């Protein structure tokens, strides 16, 4: 099977790996690179469990070709903590915003992009930001609360 070299930045580190022809970014990150934090939920672009950040914007890794990240900057939940936990991680812990935890990495990515662009989101803006991330456990309410709390905490410490 033909392989393509892909060089990119993953959570701030230079990475190079070979992608199978037509391989999606989710499989590439998980099995090719070994970053298991993006999750397979549907492979149809319908659940958001595989959400990653590419050059500052959310993307569904299951619908992105691996080779499309050549030379680009990819962020995943496994890189969210840099020495200390990110305020979103602290807030998700404090607000019991995860049960099974399977949607959490993707949810955090969507929330991070929101807060990076909009440090003071309204509740409606939070809802809009995570509307593509399904959660079957929590009923969303604690997740919304956690993201709003993280925004507050970030503003206070800024």
């Amino acid at each position, binding site marked *: 099977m033909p392989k393509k070299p892909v060089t990119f930045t993953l959570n701030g580190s230079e990475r190079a790996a070979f992608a199978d022809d037509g391989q999606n970014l989710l499989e590439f990150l998980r099995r090719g690179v070994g970053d298991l934090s993006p999750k397979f939920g549907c*492979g149809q672009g*319908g659940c958001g469990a595989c959400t990653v950040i590419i050059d500052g914007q959310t993307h569904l890794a299951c619908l992105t070709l691996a080779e499309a990240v050549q030379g680009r900057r990819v962020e995943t939940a496994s890189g969210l903590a840099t020495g200390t936990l990110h305020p979103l991680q602290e807030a998700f*812990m404090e607000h019991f915003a995860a049960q*099974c*935890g*399977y949607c959490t990495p993707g949810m955090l990515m969507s929330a991070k992009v929101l807060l990076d662009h909009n440090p003071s989101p309204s509740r409606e803006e939070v809802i809009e930001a995570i509307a593509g991330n399904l959660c079957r*456990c929590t009923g969303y309410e604690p997740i919304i609360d956690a993201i709003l709390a993280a925004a507050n905490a970030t503003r206070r410490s800024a």
Partner: protein
Amino acid sequence: MIEFRKEFFADERDDNLNEIGKPTRRQDILGHVTGRSPYFDDHLFEGLLHIRCVRSPHHHARIRRIDVSAAENMPGVMRVLTARDVPLNLNTLLSLLDFGLDDEPLLSDVKVAYKGEPVAAIIAETEAQARAAVAKVKVDWEVLPHVLDVEDAIKPGAPVVCNVYPGNKFIYHGKFDHQKLRYGDVEEAFARADHIVEGRYQMSPIEQAPMETCGAIAAPEVNDRFVCYTSTQGLFFSLGTAAKLLTMPSSRLHFIGGTVGGGFGGKVDSMHEPLAILGAMLTGRPCKYAWDREEEMQVGAPRGAERWYIKDGVMRDGRIVARKFTGYFDSGAYTRLSSYAIIKGVGHLPGPYTIPNVHADVFCVYTNRTPATAMRGFGITGVDFSIEVHMDKVAEAVGINPIDLRILNSYRDGDMKAHRRLAKNCALIECCQVVADKANVELSAASRASASMRDGGGERARLPSRTATDQNGSVSGYRASNYGKKGAGAPQPPSPPPAHSVPPGPAYRPPQPQSAPVQPHAPAPAVPPAAETPRHGALRFSSLSGFRRR
């Protein structure tokens, strides 16, 4: 928006404990927010192979021939599995409790009874290669008439869905084709009731929809064992099922799970573990078998449909004096766990109310659809929907506030319940009162003064002076199995020697009737062929309940 109403039942609790009652953070939360919680698929294996199943496009069809030769020659294909590769290709999940007859193959080879039933499995280097090879398997189908409605399925002449249960009904206690509940005499009470309220209720199948689909990865381990990473909800349930189907001592299996991306009942069925381990046995390489989302939704067992008929006899003041249920659980093509849910559901009737006359006939019915299984509230959600909508109709019929009606009929500590045990630890009345208060619904003085710990027992603890029983739906030719066994009549005959001994090795084919013609529904006394189905006692993994097959 949550409050803890500590003033209720305060004298029954010690609220001053060190750790209990504290809002301690979850042990697993750090793993969740850092993306490091290890779900079954978060284990990397060199040389991982992928399994995809060939599935029936028909609701009901006989398999004339399966031709896998083209698929075997597709790129990346390591092996194609069919029924003959499964050491013991017939199981029922609750055989671990010795409940019910083995009825479901892992890979079918005689016929299929639902759209999506697996008949072969491709093991390939990549998932894409496995999918491509699935499309190359040629199956010669003989399409059979099918039945999809529960009440049609139990009519005489209906297509036989599962040959093990030719009447399309599970057999309870070796005695009846349904589970009975008889308490008092509903017909007598209906005759003197002021109102009769009747209803029919239907719940369609519902998908558990965990964000992580069901799956397992198995790999050869040292010392001739196999490790299996799994999303199961019951580690030893799945381990025992795999040991049985693979005719392997359970000590050769090492199951690892416990961190699961949601289950909601849909991860009990143990469909993936046996096939993944079989793949690892036959290829010597790690094998992953997991559903994609489409399979999870249409092939993975849902919360099954239920249909309920309820008839109440009600007095002018709102007291319900009789309640009669007829229930149909749509089990789909095989039993899985529906038979269990019915006993659980019957033990729950007539809901949280003290009703002096209760009657229920509940059927586990086979239809040509995806088998049903457990989901959050299993055995209860559907009938509670029915009961509570029905209560609303009763309230309207007698002109009483719906909450007053509930409190009036609510069970209280010391009341006799329809399954003939005394109620204790009740709290329905208090829940009703709290909600009415919060929502500004004015209750009657009697409702406000009611309490779960008052006015129960006494007369209400008495068993009915007379209970109307019957032998409707009797069957013969079946033996009672252990789970829930009682009153199975004469002492059980010694187990006949199995009609088919289980040969070692991979070529075993399950006993199946030679054909599945459209059989007329046999009236009860006929001895059905199912009686001869051997129960694979030697393979029972009996740690679950401590009950061994006799």
